[in-house]
């Protein structure tokens, strides 16, 4: 156990039990407390074996919270000074729980958090300090992050670190251990982010970081959370009604220096919000961007739905999202189209609504507001809003994260599946304000997941979507769920450990199949289809064995006797499928030895041996034909068919003729002998 002093200092003591990551980083099992880590990724002391003077910490991620793999790749070794440096990441088997964890190795922050907690008021920061030591370094770092097409998604006072020196620039905290904006309090989220589930906020846009920076500045000025006492729903409603600036600044007196930049950064329209260029211009030259009127166009005539009258599309979209169950349209939604074209005069909006109407044609109850129809209509009305279905909101890039965090909730899982099946991401992409902000491959990936979802064979379905969309998702098979296996290479060892416990059912299920199918870079579809064949136990057994054999071959080919013996209990159909007694006896005699060896690939080759099976099948077919022929002859003989009187008579007469000939010749010969 590490000494408390060593732990407090973030150092790994010489006598402390450690976990080794990637052969280089020693991680202490004891947590450092919440001073550095996040609520879902506690920090642990760590030591770099190659450079023991290098101050580092390890964040041990919550396996139930999907990380940001792209950010991990981008930030690994990223040289920016304004954000905690991610040195490495990898998986370890955590000793306490005997389960796998993703660990992120960061450079140790230069000091404590700028603000320990937003729950209580704190000392306000002088405005010049804010500009010099907060805004300036953050803008510089955001600029560098923009260069690698990454957003931060976690700018808030509690995620900023600063050396004890009050004149030192802040360093932004870690962002890779959770989905983008997941830990952001409501105040720090733009309206589109707030409209989504926390796990569905996604990476967001660079302008979302600027908005969060604005709220951070505001909270440092006033010394508290600007939205203290208001929940997310209230905050969203107020932001929609009054705008973010008024909602968050309220009656607080703002310093003249920061008033206009704050107004620019808290602008709700992303296209009008200050960008990095505007901030740089302000920081360097105190040049202020001229503010445009961001008040949305008001319709000449209101649209009445559900007893309310709407003059703007965005509040209508929000109302539809909140009242999707009760909404009823008198003209199957065409009244919304007419209102948008005639009263708002917005043809682009009209086209998007028409698109939603056309896509929803034929859906049962679309006229009375089927959930997908209401969702499409809401997206058409608000081009920045997330996909919202049955009260669940997600941006396109975070559907996987939302699925992962909701997987234990059957209703939410069904809703995410419906989002994919209804191609709502595709619709969102076509009608969104900033389609170029979404990676072009993402709609294609989600369209592919739609096909995966429709396939109900083992290795596909919602389970496969879960693993395809979340590369760091642990395998949720009940057989290994406690071990939180995140890499396919760890799956067979986990099954080997599970084999020593009570075994219920075969070492194969839908989750295992989907997990393997998603991570193994080999086309497993034929084997997965075999494993799903409920009508043919032999095919199912060989399919299961084939998938696990491929897994073993792909992951180093270690021996797994426990798994092999476990499998052996469910291979009867594959053994019985050998028809010839000789083969069965041979297999029965040789199988125990193979199982003990634990070589699943060899076991598969043995049982699925193509040549032997082919010979067995050919012989079996011939045996069936031969048996049928013999049976037909027996039936004929037993049915007295041979005793047909005509046949008997013919046969009898033949014998008679022959016998007479013989007797005649014999008699003649005897006569001849006697006479001579």
């Amino acid at each position, binding site marked *: 156990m590490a000494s408390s002093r060593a732990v407090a200092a973030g150092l790994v003591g010489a006598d402390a039990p450690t976990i080794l990551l990637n052969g280089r980083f020693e991680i202490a099992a004891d947590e450092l407390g919440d001073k550095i880590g996040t609520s879902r990724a506690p920090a642990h002391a760590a030591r770099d074996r190659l450079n023991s003077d290098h101050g580092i910490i390890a964040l041990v991620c919550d396996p139930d919270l999907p990380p940001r793999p792209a950010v991990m790749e981008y930030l690994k070794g990223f040289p920016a000074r304004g954000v905690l440096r991610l040195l490495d990441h990898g998986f370890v088997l955590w000793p306490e729980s005997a389960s796998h964890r993703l660990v992120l190795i960061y450079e140790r922050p230069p000091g404590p958090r700028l603000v320990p907690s937003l729950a209580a008021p704190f000392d306000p920061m002088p405005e010049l300090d804010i500009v010099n030591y907060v805004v300036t370094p953050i803008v510089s770092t955001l600029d560098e992050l923009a260069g690698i097409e990454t957003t931060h998604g976690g700018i808030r006072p509690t995620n900023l670190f600063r050396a004890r020196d009050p004149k030192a620039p802040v360093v932004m905290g870690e962002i890779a251990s959770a989905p983008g904006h997941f830990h952001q309090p409501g105040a720090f989220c733009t309206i589109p982010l707030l409209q989504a589930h926390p796990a569905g906020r996604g990476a967001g846009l660079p302008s979302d970081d600027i908005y969060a920076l604005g709220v951070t500045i505001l909270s440092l000025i006033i010394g508290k959370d600007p939205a203290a006492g208001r929940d997310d729903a209230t905050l969203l409603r107020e932001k929609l009604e009054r705008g973010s600036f008024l909602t968050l600044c309220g009656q607080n007196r703002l310093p003249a220096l920061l008033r206009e930049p704050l107004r620019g950064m808290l602008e709700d329209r992303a296209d009008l919000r200050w960008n990095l260029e505007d901030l740089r211009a302000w920081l360097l030259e105190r040049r202020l961007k001229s503010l445009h009127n961001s008040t949305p166009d008001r319709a000449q005539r209101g649209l009445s739905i559900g007893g309310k009258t709407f003059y703007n599309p965005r509040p209508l979209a929000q109302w539809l999202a909140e009242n999707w169950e009760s909404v009823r349209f008198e003209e199957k939604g065409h009244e919304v189209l007419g209102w948008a074209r005639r009263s708002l005069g917005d043809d682009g909006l009209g086209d998007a609504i028409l698109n939603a109407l056309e896509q929803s044609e034929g859906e049962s109850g679309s006229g009375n507001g089927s959930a997908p129809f209401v969702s499409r209509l809401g997206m058409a009305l608000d081009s920045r809003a997330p996909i919202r279905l049955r009260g669940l909101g997600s941006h396109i890039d975070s559907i996987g994260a939302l699925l992962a965090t909701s997987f234990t909730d059957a209703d939410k899982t069904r809703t995410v599946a419906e989002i994919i099946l209804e191609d709502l991401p595709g619709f969102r992409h076509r009608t969104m304000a900033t389609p170029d902000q979404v990676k072009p491959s993402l709609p294609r990936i989600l369209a592919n997941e739609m096909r995966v979802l429709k396939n109900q064979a083992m290795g596909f379905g919602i389970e496969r979507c879960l693993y395809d969309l979340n590369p760091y998702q642990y395998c949720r098979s009940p057989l290994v769920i406690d071990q939180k296996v995140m890499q396919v290479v760890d799956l067979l060892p986990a099954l080997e450990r599970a084999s020593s416990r009570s075994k219920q059912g075969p070492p194969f299920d839908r989750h295992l199949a989907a997990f393997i199918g998603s991570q193994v870079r080999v086309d497993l579809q034929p084997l997965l289809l075999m494993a799903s064949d409920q009508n043919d136990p032999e095919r199912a057994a060989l399919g299961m064995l084939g998938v696990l054999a491929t897994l073993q071959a792909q992951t180093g080919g270690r021996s797994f006797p426990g798994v092999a013996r476990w499998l052996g209990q469910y291979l009867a159909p594959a053994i019985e499928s050998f028809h010839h007694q000789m083969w069965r006896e041979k297999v029965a005699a040789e199988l125990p030895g193979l199982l003990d060896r634990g070589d699943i690939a060899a076991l598969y080759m043995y049982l699925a041996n193509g040549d032997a099976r082919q010979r067995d099948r050919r012989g079996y077919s011939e045996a069936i034909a031969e*048996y049928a022929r013999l049976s037909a002859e027996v039936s004929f003989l037993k049915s007295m068919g041979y005793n047909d009187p005509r046949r*008997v008579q013919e046969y009898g*007469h033949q014998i008679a003729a022959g016998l*007479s*000939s013989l007797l005649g010749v014999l008699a003649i010969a005897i006569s001849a002998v006697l006479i001579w």
Partner: protein
Amino acid sequence: MSTIQNKGRPTSAGSSLAQFIFFGAFIGGMVFALPTMLVLTLGLLPTLVAFIVDAHPRKYAARSVGFLNLAGTLPFLVTLWSKNHNLIEAMRILTDVYAWLVIYAAAAVGWIIYLGMPSVAGFLMELTAARRIRKLDAERRRLIKEWGDGVNRAGSLPS
């Protein structure tokens, strides 16, 4: 069709040729060996009758009766040829009751064989079939033992 016709022609031609040779030999015999032909013609009357009444193309009845009938007649023909081959000797044979008895008894044995053999054959066939069934059942049991019950798709088990 043509195959059947082609097959039929030689048979018909052969039959005509046989008839021609038969009648030629008969006339020749009557001219040059009248005593022999007399004994032969009267002695083989049962065969002639069998030939006429037997509708079967292969003439089993005629063959069954004919061979024994000929065997019964041949000793008397040999006597005729070895003593005096004349009509007196032929008439002596033809008026000998014992000769008639031997010749017609032999023909009768032929008839008896012809008429009784189907019953014997039926019995023999039954025996053969039972033995064949036993052999087939043994073979079926071997197949089941070697390949399992699955080979018996029709549900026909060996007795």
